[in-house]
């Protein structure tokens, strides 16, 4: 098996920053990313066959992403980037199995930095499986990366500042946005301004997006959310209305109707922790940053020696935090490999640590905004599908509880939820919260739907071919 001094999994902002710092310190580093080019979700690159004609019109994310990609390129040959490569298993701590096209292979990493990012949190409500219901992240991919309108008239619902960003992007692309529904309260209150003092960039962004909505005449309703999507073969009508401001319980008797062909839902993000779990890292539950996250020290080291976890995959905190965490892990890995003295390493970490510290108060505000409240659990009715893959209704989960299921694993065996192609990535966070509420148990007691390798689909043919190649050697 090939051995590499450092492997970084994930080419988003955190992974790129980690590889850049490790490479600058002279550490041989392999960056594996499943997308066609580094960037992750926020800095996702245009397809290679596309040519950018108006970079100035593409906004800050495009410019920032290009800057990180340039820095990454400049670290070659110390850093080797391989795109279109999915890591599908981590075993014995740091042995990676990767898949790319029809090929697979193994790599032993002396050190491993996991920068696996986050995914949109799925919140079930009646009609959420209809075509035309897209996650906020999915809508962004269509509009921002591929420049395609995913519908003609949209309703945007969920929580967090991303809603404003997506609504603006849809509007600029020519999609009519009927309204934006924020389940929470106004994002920045006067009492919180001191916490954001100095973060002018963030405040300016928030202001710009808010102004964008205003000038487009798009209404923004706080303490409102989507109740139901209706339609025959696709979304035709959406029912929405107010939620109580504290727990977000839907006031379904006050529902209103709006005719749209696109419903964009963004209820925040959930860290992708599958690989860390398979590597044996200890995890803890923190609902402020998306749920289950790896236990880490201040240098991003997990409980498995030589394995680091950075960025949204280690707790959702956004791109600014992700980059600094990546830097700290990359520098620490180089120090660990003996390429930086402890003093040099401390010097290099210092700016990143200072930046993280100054972002701390912003994080407190954002964490409070983005933490979803239990009232959203009341959106689903007994007939609502809670597992999209295996088409399991909420009533089946309720029956499982009545029959004595006390955790996610037994509920899975009883109902098949989480046994489908997505491996529970969509249903686990919501069902976990549902079981906690109904069984009055803690997240650790309810447990998880354990990730199983391969975490991305690989055909038996591909695995068998890799096995044959390995035996021939």
């Amino acid at each position: 098996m090939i051995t590499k001094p450092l492997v970084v999994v994930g080419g988003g902002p955190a992974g790129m920053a980690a590889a850049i710092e490790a490479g600058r310190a002279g550490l041989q580093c392999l960056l594996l990313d499943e997308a066609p080019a580094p960037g992750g979700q926020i800095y996702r690159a245009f397809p290679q066959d596309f040519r950018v004609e108006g970079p100035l019109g593409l906004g800050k994310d495009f410019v920032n992403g290009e800057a990180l990609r340039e820095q990454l390129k400049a670290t070659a040959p110390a850093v080797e980037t391989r795109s279109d490569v999915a890591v599908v298993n981590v075993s014995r701590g740091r042995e990676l199995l990767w898949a790319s096209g029809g090929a697979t292979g193994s790599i032993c990493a002396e050190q491993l930095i996991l920068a696996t990012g986050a995914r949109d949190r799925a919140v079930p409500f009646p009609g959420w499986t209809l075509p035309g219901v897209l996650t906020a992240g999915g809508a962004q991919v269509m509009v921002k990366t591929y420049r395609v309108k995913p519908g003609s008239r949209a309703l945007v619902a969920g929580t967090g500042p991303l809603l404003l960003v997506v609504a603006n992007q849809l509007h600029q692309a020519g999609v009519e946005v009927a309204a934006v529904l924020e389940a929470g309260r106004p994002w920045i209150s006067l009492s919180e301004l001191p916490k954001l003092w100095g973060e002018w960039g963030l405040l300016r962004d928030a202001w710009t997006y808010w102004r964008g909505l205003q000038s487009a005449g798009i209404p923004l309703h706080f303490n409102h959310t989507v109740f139901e999507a209706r339609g025959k073969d696709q979304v035709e009508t959406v029912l929405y209305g107010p939620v109580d401001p504290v727990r977000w319980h839907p006031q379904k008797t006050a529902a209103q109707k709006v005719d749209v062909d696109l419903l964009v839902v963004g209820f925040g993000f959930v860290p992708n922790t599958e690989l860390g779990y398979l590597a044996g890292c200890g995890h803890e539950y923190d609902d402020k940053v998306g749920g289950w996250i790896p236990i880490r020290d201040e240098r991003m080291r997990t409980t498995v020696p030589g394995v680091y976890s950075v960025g949204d995959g280690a707790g959702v905190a956004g791109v600014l935090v992700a980059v600094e965490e990546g830097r700290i892990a990359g520098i620490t890995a180089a120090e660990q490999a003996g390429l930086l003295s402890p003093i040099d390493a401390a010097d290099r970490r210092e700016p990143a640590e200072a930046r993280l510290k100054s972002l701390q108060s912003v994080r407190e505000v954002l964490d409070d905004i983005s933490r979803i409240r239990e009232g959203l659990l009341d959106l689903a009715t007994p007939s609502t599908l809670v597992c999209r893959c295996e088409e399991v209704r909420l009533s089946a989960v309720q029956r499982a509880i009545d029959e004595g299921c006390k955790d996610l694993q037994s509920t899975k065996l009883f109902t098949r939820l989480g046994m489908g192609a997505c491996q529970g990535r969509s249903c686990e966070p919501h069902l976990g919260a549902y079981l906690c509420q109904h069984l009055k148990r803690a997240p650790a007691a309810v447990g998880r739907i354990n990730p199983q390798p391969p975490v991305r689909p690989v055909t038996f043919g591909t695995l068998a071919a890799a096995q044959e190649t390995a035996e021939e050697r």
Partner: protein
Amino acid sequence: MAQDLRVPGLVARGRPVEILVGDRALTAFEGETVAVALLAAGIRHFRTSPVLGEPRGPYCGMGICFDCVLTIDGIPGVRACQTKVRPGMRVEIQAAHGRWEVEQR
């Protein structure tokens, strides 16, 4: 004129690529995914679910949810949002789990 939901300006797409969706010929562009090509043509119903027979299409758009899977070049269950268009590609809207139409390796 068939529906085209592509947004003009700022980027130039790759070369045109002809694909077949059922028996309908579609023009997509190099670099686009199958999901993008279909959505741009106004096609949102990618498959019919195995248990309830309900219509499904893209949901997460980034390879996580497996709701946009359909049959591509005879192989069922392929994620449209993670598969780039190729000239002459045959895409079938998938009923339930679909059917293999190629010799299985």
